């Protein structure tokens, strides 16, 4: 037994260990609700007895034992209930957990992985996967998750409830998928982690503190994945990609709140240590099979390694986007490639590719895609076609969802040549 720590310190320990404990409880009881309730009971018991008796040497083991005892009590209680179906279910779970307890070793690591695959099962909706992953494997409270997604707590709770019931009723298995499904299932896990990150990274919605906590959760989950699946290149690549982006968080916005593009950012405000960790993760990823996350991380690294914005290696970046388009084709990737081509080979080259894209079916998908109009406006501006650039900036401004992009584009529009300013006055 250790020293007598403060309540905050206890709560921090509990938060750190909760994911592990929950995973092992779900593994032995096969029931999310029961596991959560039992863990809650155990946490309450810990916060009562630890200040008195000291923190146990292995807090996770203490919590697991206490929670398992509570869960068994609850099941025995339920097994005696009048409702036949409920009673039957409870005694089945009781039997299951008894056999599981005898074979359960200290292998909680593997259980977190199984839990992650279950939470990210393709039979669940994408929103449910995100909520369930954050709630069961993340260290955030329901309130914090709801705040970051700008959702009422009750809506989030209902979403979680529905997902947990589907896992139980449709019997979504609690296991690491077989080799035949591996690529698709791991892809779903990585996509969920990246969705969590992007919700935090996008400049719209909740206040920065709530959003950054999502970015940090996503990075934490990716770190866990790389530890559990050290040989998977794409897990390392996703970690690299998120670290390289998140390291720039304080340089992404000017003092007036306007968005600052990568090559104009103050590099002194980038977190050097996080960039270094990102580059290290990319180095590990690069020794494995090349995938879409690795190419995206390589693009982020190309920006990070340039000594200044003016030295950005646009030729390399354009080539990487071309590769990304082969691996994961989408109109969005195409627009990014066109921006890079415009910087590498001049605006005319970019505009020619843009014209080809407009002839394509993809044009429909881009009709209200703000970055498409922003890219078009920048290319026209660089080509000296001020009037057309102003028109494209105005469309892009109207499509903005967040204030930072709006301010940035308004700045670009105002900075156009003199008659550009005239048309701004006429247009508004």
């Amino acid at each position: 037994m250790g020293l007598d720590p403060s309540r905050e310190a206890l709560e921090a320990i509990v938060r750190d260990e909760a994911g592990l404990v929950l995973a092992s409880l779900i593994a032995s009881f096969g029931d999310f609700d029961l596991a959560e309730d039992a863990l809650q009971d155990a946490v309450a018991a810990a916060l009562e007895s630890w200040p008195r008796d000291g923190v146990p040497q292995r807090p996770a083991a203490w919590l697991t034992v206490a929670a398992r005892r509570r869960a068994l009590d609850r099941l025995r209680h339920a097994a005696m209930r009048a409702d036949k179906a409920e009673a039957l279910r409870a005694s089945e779970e009781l039997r299951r957990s008894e056999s599981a307890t005898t074979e359960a070793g200290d292998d909680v690591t593997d259980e977190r992985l199984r839990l992650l695959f279950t939470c990210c099962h393709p039979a669940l909706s994408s929103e449910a996967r995100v909520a369930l992953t954050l709630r069961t494997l993340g260290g955030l409270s329901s309130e914090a998750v709801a705040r970051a997604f700008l959702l009422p707590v009750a809506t989030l709770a209902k979403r979680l409830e529905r997902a947990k019931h589907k896992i139980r009723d449709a019997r979504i298995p609690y296991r690491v998928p077989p080799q035949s499904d591996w690529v698709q299932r791991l892809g779903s896990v990585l996509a969920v982690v990246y969705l969590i990150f992007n919700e935090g990274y996008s400049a719209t919605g909740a206040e920065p503190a709530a959003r950054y906590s999502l970015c940090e959760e996503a990075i934490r989950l990716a770190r866990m994945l790389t530890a559990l699946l050290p040989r998977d290149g794409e897990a390392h690549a996703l970690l690299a990609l998120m670290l390289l982006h998140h390291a720039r968080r304080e340089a992404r916005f000017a003092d007036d709140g306007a968005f600052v593009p990568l090559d104009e950012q103050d590099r002194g405000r980038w977190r050097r240590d996080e960039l270094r960790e990102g580059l290290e993760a990319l180095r590990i990823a690069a020794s494995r099979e090349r995938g879409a996350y690795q190419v995206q991380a390589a693009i982020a690294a190309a920006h990070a390694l340039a000594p200044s914005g003016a030295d950005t290696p646009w030729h390399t970046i354009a080539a990487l986007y071309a590769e990304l388009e082969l691996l994961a084709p989408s109109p969005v990737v195409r627009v990014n490639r066109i921006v890079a081509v415009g910087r590498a080979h001049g605006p005319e080259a970019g505009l020619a590719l843009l014209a080809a894209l407009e002839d394509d079916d993809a044009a429909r998908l881009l009709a209200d895609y703000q970055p498409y109009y922003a890219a078009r406006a920048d290319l026209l501006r660089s080509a000296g076609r001020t009037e057309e650039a102003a028109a494209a900036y105005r469309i892009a401004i109207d499509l903005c969802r967040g204030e930072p992009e709006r301010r940035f584009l308004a700045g670009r529009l105002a900075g156009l040549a003199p008659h550009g300013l005239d048309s701004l006055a006429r247009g508004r």
Partner: protein
Amino acid sequence: MQYALLFYNPPLGSMPAPQRDTVVAEMLAEMHVWHEELERAGVFRTMLRLASVEAATSLRRNGDEVLVSDGPFAETKEILGGLAILECADLDEALAFAKRCPLARIGTVEVRPEWGTPR
């Protein structure tokens, strides 16, 4: 645990008759192969191919009486063409067999677990 696989497909009525006959014959042959796979795996319980919705009759309550009317319960683009019942360990196993069902290529296969079985 039992899973119902509900086969929804676009109505074949719009297709010219000779072409339709070929499509149906091919599909039946492939369904036969799939059925044998289910039998070998020991998961097959039952399967039913349904007549077209023109043969459907629906009952609806209206106040105190029950009305009998011609036609299906709901008009939809894809119609329920048949169903199979499989006994599987979990959803992943049911999904694996459903994915190999030839009807998944031409329509939608909905996989529904039976209600309320204890784990």
